[in-house]
């Protein structure tokens, strides 16, 4: 009888538990709490947190190559680069590029905000990360989850959990991280600037935009193709108005399905062995640094543009050049309305915000081209 109990005990996962596993449980519980109670990016944090928990239960072999259930999700979904482009397909079907088409100069803000990426890249190299790792860390500054996952899985797959979690965490923390930077770099008078009305955008322009943008970007930076092609196809579904079923499937059912596998797989890369190292703490720190520098770069870019523009723009919209859509635009709107309650910056901020998505993909493609 005692032998049977002994055998049961030794074949269970309990005896194989390590201290690291327990720490990862704690990380998982904290993320579950943030997702469920605080509703920070719950659609992603919840499956990520659960992924962390199950992969830190010993002897389950869920991430065992060629055997584990979650490994198959990870291998086919992320390692083979299928899920991030599918997310972009859905994103494209949801994004309205109208504000960007109405005010194309906001593209500069979306590009300017990527400066943080490059600053962080060099900072990460100084901290001792190799070039590939530095590239994966720098992209966190773009605050775009799928692009971060895409690039990290290509350049430094062992950092995937850390870069993905920090990208999504900073996206959720936009309302806390961005306002102090916005207030620091702008004057009350600048924040009060009311912008001139956006010109109306015709349907023809909206239909042509994804086609022309896809062609231009893919011709100039071919490695951006997987993400940009899907983003623009999704947008063409939406704007053409003739394939509503495809547009809805891409932005709802398909997006929801792949989100489950994305979250779970990313979480499952975070075993105690890979996650619990001082490097990871640095990644969170450098990611935050990247995000702050990107916000600042967008704001400064807007101020520089104002030196040349007759109709001044409100420099706050520069902060929306990071690609956290639509969190950054909402944040700009809120800070703008605090300075002038009749200032409705939301749609103006959406221009640089959607430009930021494109900018981050291009930045990722350039990093990939040079480091991959």
């Amino acid at each position, binding site marked *: 009888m005692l032998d049977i109990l002994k055998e049961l005990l030794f074949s269970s996962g309990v005896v194989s538990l390590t201290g690291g596993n327990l720490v990862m449980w704690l990380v998982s519980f904290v993320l579950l709490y943030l997702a469920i109670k605080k509703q920070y990016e719950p659609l992603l944090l919840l499956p990520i947190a659960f992924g962390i928990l199950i992969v830190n239960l010993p002897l389950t072999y869920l991430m065992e190559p060629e055997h584990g259930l979650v490994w198959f999700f990870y291998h086919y979904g992320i390692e083979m680069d299928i899920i991030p482009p599918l997310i972009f397909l859905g994103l494209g079907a949801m994004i309205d590029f109208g504000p960007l088409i109405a005010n194309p100069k906001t593209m500069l803000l979306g590009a300017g905000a990527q400066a943080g990426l490059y600053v962080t890249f060099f900072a990460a190299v100084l901290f001792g990360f190799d070039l590939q790792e530095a590239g994966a860390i720098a992209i966190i500054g773009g605050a775009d989850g799928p692009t971060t996952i895409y690039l990290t899985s290509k350049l430094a797959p062992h950092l995937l959990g850390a870069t993905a979690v920090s990208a999504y965490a900073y996206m959720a923390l936009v309302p806390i991280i961005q306002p102090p930077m916005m207030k620091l770099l702008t004057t009350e008078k600048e924040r009060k600037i009311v912008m001139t009305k956006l010109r109306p955008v015709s349907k023809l322009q909206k239909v042509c935009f994804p086609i022309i943008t896809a062609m231009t970007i893919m011709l100039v930076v071919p490695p951006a193709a997987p993400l940009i092609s899907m983003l623009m196809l999704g947008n063409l579904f939406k704007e053409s108005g003739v394939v509503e079923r495809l547009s809805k499937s891409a932005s709802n059912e398909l997006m929801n399905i792949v989100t489950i596998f994305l979250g779970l797989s990313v979480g499952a890369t975070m075993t105690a062995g890979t996650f619990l190292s001082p490097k990871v703490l640095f990644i969170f720190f450098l990611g935050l640094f990247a995000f702050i520098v990107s916000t600042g770069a967008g704001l400064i870019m807007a101020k520089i543009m104002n030196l040349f523009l007759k109709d001044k723009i409100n420099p706050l919209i520069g902060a929306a050049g990071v690609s956290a859509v639509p969190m950054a635009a909402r944040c700009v709107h809120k800070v703008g309305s605090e300075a002038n*309650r009749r200032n*409705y910056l939301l749609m103006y901020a959406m221009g640089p915000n959607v430009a930021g998505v494109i900018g981050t993909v291009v930045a990722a493609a350039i990093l990939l081209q040079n480091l991959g």
Partner: protein
Amino acid sequence: MPDLLAPIAGNVWKILVAVGDKVELDDELVILEALKMETPIYCDDSGTVTAIKVKEGDAVNDGDVLLVIG
């Protein structure tokens, strides 16, 4: 005085006044919802609400009339 126009596209979330109400400068009259964010729309002058052109849940475009204030 001019009508109250929607400054951004969105959905009408809440209408905080009724026909006949007296309103003053800076009163919160309507709350619009755009990109899952509530945006209050304030009164530009004082007057009386003579008509409400939208109902809660309606989608409005930038520049649509929300309320007529006489």
